């Protein structure tokens, strides 16, 4: 029998007997805050109408939210006959969310407000192959640099986009430990290190998932509810937004289309191996060596390395062999995506990744294959475009993941009375656990020196 409420396995206070005032107020506070935050209601009258709460209760709850600094009622709206109504706005500036993208070749960091708007970002080259501890150290240095530049750094959360599926049964409010996203990650407690260094809850999502969310909220997805996002790089993955939210599947492993087998002539391999950037680079090298591509051969003579980007640039400049390589990649990707489109009937397909974004040929070939293989009803209003957000979509999407996590009713109800997510009992538990393990394991969990 647990001796305290928080010692229960689900981490929530025991609800028994007469509820405390904080418990009765919390659900209505959650409802009202989310109505204001999502701009479904912007005046007291609208809040009363949507929440079906009485005027006195709404006034009381708004008072509480105002004291917590989560809403702002200083602005006046347009009068509709009579006095101008006081606008109720979400105080997105109350807190900050640190966001990062860990890519195969780059690390991106940024800071967003509580509405998920990116305020600042920075990207630099980094090798994912380096030890996770070194990556974490750089991440922490850059996070500290960004926090220093914020006037009032009230940190509410950290959200990171990682280059692999994040296993999740869908019930976790936030990350309680470091999942084995990539080989080697199990051995380094990235999540625990971040919690210890910054005292804020951490969310992890795959890069395709965050990019899908970013594109849906701040990029090409504007106003659409069903979007298929395809990232073409060394790996090829897809993300699905349905009804404005990310579809995560049973284990958070949606869209691993890179492992679908495809066939070209007598060769069969996975989509990643037959159309990804490694394949493009490899075919480019072969074309250069055999004299099929004068531009790439010239590159090689000058001692430059041929990557997929060089092949894409050569194709853009009219090099026939490079055009063929990219067109084939585009066709293969298009064939696989067409199957998905027929199944899911998206309003929009966005192709992302540096090759797709800088090259017309891959996009054109993919489009041709998709439109050609889709049912007329599916392709009638289907738009296929390239992403315009670059790596920013990962950062914006990571911020959206954190805001949705922070303000999800199941999470919010247990921190709203304190005004800070750090007060959530489950977060306290995670911190206690980290502290306990730290004592047990000596200094192995100490955040890296920066």
């Amino acid at each position: 029998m647990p001796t305290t409420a928080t010692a229960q396995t689900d981490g929530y206070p025991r609800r028994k007997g007469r509820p405390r005032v904080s418990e009765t107020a919390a659900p209505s506070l959650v409802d009202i805050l989310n109505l204001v935050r999502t701009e479904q209601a912007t005046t007291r009258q609208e809040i009363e109408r949507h929440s079906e709460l009485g005027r006195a209760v709404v006034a009381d709850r708004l008072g509480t939210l105002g004291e917590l600094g989560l809403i702002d009622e200083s602005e006046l709206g347009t009068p509709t006959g009579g006095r101008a109504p006081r606008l109720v706005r979400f105080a997105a500036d109350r807190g900050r969310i640190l966001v990062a993208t860990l890519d195969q070749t780059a690390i991106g960091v940024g800071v967003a407000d509580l509405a998920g708007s990116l305020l600042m970002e920075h990207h630099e080259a980094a090798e994912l192959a380096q030890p996770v501890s070194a990556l974490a150290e750089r991440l922490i240095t850059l996070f500290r640099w960004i926090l220093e530049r914020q006037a009032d750094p009230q940190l509410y959360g950290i959200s990171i986009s990682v280059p692999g599926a994040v296993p999740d049964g869908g019930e976790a409010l936030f990350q309680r430990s470091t999942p084995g996203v990539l080989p080697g990650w199990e051995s380094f407690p990235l999540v625990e290190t971040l919690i210890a260094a910054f005292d804020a809850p951490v969310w992890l999502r795959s890069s395709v998932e965050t990019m899908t969310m970013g594109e849906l909220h701040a990029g090409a997805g504007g106003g659409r509810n069903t979007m298929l996002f395809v990232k073409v790089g060394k790996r090829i993955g897809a993300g699905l937004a349905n009804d404005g939210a990310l579809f995560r599947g049973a284990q958070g492993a949606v869209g691993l289309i890179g492992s679908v087998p495809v066939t070209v002539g007598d060769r069969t391999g996975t989509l990643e191996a037959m159309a990804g950037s490694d394949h493009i680079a490899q075919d480019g090298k072969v074309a250069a060596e055999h004299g099929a591509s004068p531009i790439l051969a010239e590159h090689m003579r000058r001692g430059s390395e041929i990557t997929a980007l060089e092949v894409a640039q050569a194709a853009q400049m009219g090099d026939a062999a490079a055009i063929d390589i990219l067109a084939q990649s585009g066709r293969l990707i298009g064939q696989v995506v067409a199957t998905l489109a027929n199944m899911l009937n998206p309003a929009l397909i966005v192709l992302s990744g540096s090759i797709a974004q800088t090259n017309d040929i891959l996009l054109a070939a993919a489009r041709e294959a998709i439109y050609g293989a889709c049912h007329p009803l599916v392709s009638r209003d289907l738009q296929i475009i390239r992403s315009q957000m670059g790596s920013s979509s990962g950062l914006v999407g990571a911020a959206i993941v954190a805001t949705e996590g922070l303000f999800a009713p199941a999470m919010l109800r247990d921190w709203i009375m304190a005004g800070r997510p750090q007060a959530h009992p489950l977060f306290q538990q995670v911190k206690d656990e980290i502290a306990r393990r730290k004592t047990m394991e000596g200094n192995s969990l100490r955040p890296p020196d920066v």
Partner: protein
Amino acid sequence: MAITGLGPHGERASAPERVLLLPEDMARARASGFRVAIVLHTLASDWAKQQLSGIVGMLGNCGVAVIDVVDCAFTPEVQIEALERLIGEAPNAIISLPVANSKVAAAHARVAAAGIKLVLLDNVPTGLLPGKDYISLVSADNFGLGKIAAEGLSPHLPDGAEVGVLGYDADFFATNEREIAFVKWMQINRPDVTLRMRRFPALSEVAKTTRNLAEAHPGLAGLFVVWDTPAMTAAQVLETMGRRISMATVDLGQEAAIGLAASEPLVAIAAQQPFRQGETAASIVVTALLGRLAPAWVALPGLAVTARNVVECFQTVWRMPAPREVLRKLSLVGPEK
């Protein structure tokens, strides 16, 4: 020299050769009668003048008329007003250097929304996207500039030295990148060095910030300042305080070149190439107006300048002979009679 940094949205840099204009491109542009307006942060600095002459010259070669050149005097309000007015004039393209971040973002977004091609110099307000809100960003490899400055300053630092970093307290892509790169290089290559960070909010605060930094850390052996104008102010302040500190900065201004020739207090400069940056911005405008896809970020490498190569670098950057005083300090001409 390779580009070491990434673009404002993590883009890989494209070389200026990507937007090279062929004679037939120029002929097509000449036949089209395009009109372009230019909005700069200032017209007073050597850097801005050089960049402007690069832009105007290249546009002239392509028969493109420059209908206005606006000096925003580092003021967001002036820039917003100028952009509003220019949208009314409906030029085919606007080349702008955003003087702030979120404050001027909406005004720049309205340019593209009005169907006018926008090419940005040096800075992208957060939230603006290439291909949607603007065509391309042209800048120096600012991350590379910070690295060059660190590499140049390092040999002048004794073991275990304390080094000051004077950053710019504004959210500006170029200066942020220089600061991050300088600090990163030092942390990796000179772990013995202790960095002391200060940021100035405006040029008028540089003297005060420098004095605070120098007083708080009497053992300071080196100083990095994110561009040359504040660096020269800092140098004066340190001189009046009787402090001899080796300095590194970015941009080869006249005064900075003189200081570098004397190897005191400046020992290293990472120089941008404003004339080439200007020419590149103009080439991108023409590329976009001819309906071709332009890369999201075109970056030009920086030059590593020390007393040894200051004369030729000055000529490369400014397209004019180095100041007489530089030549005298290096004994390339006789003393003044």
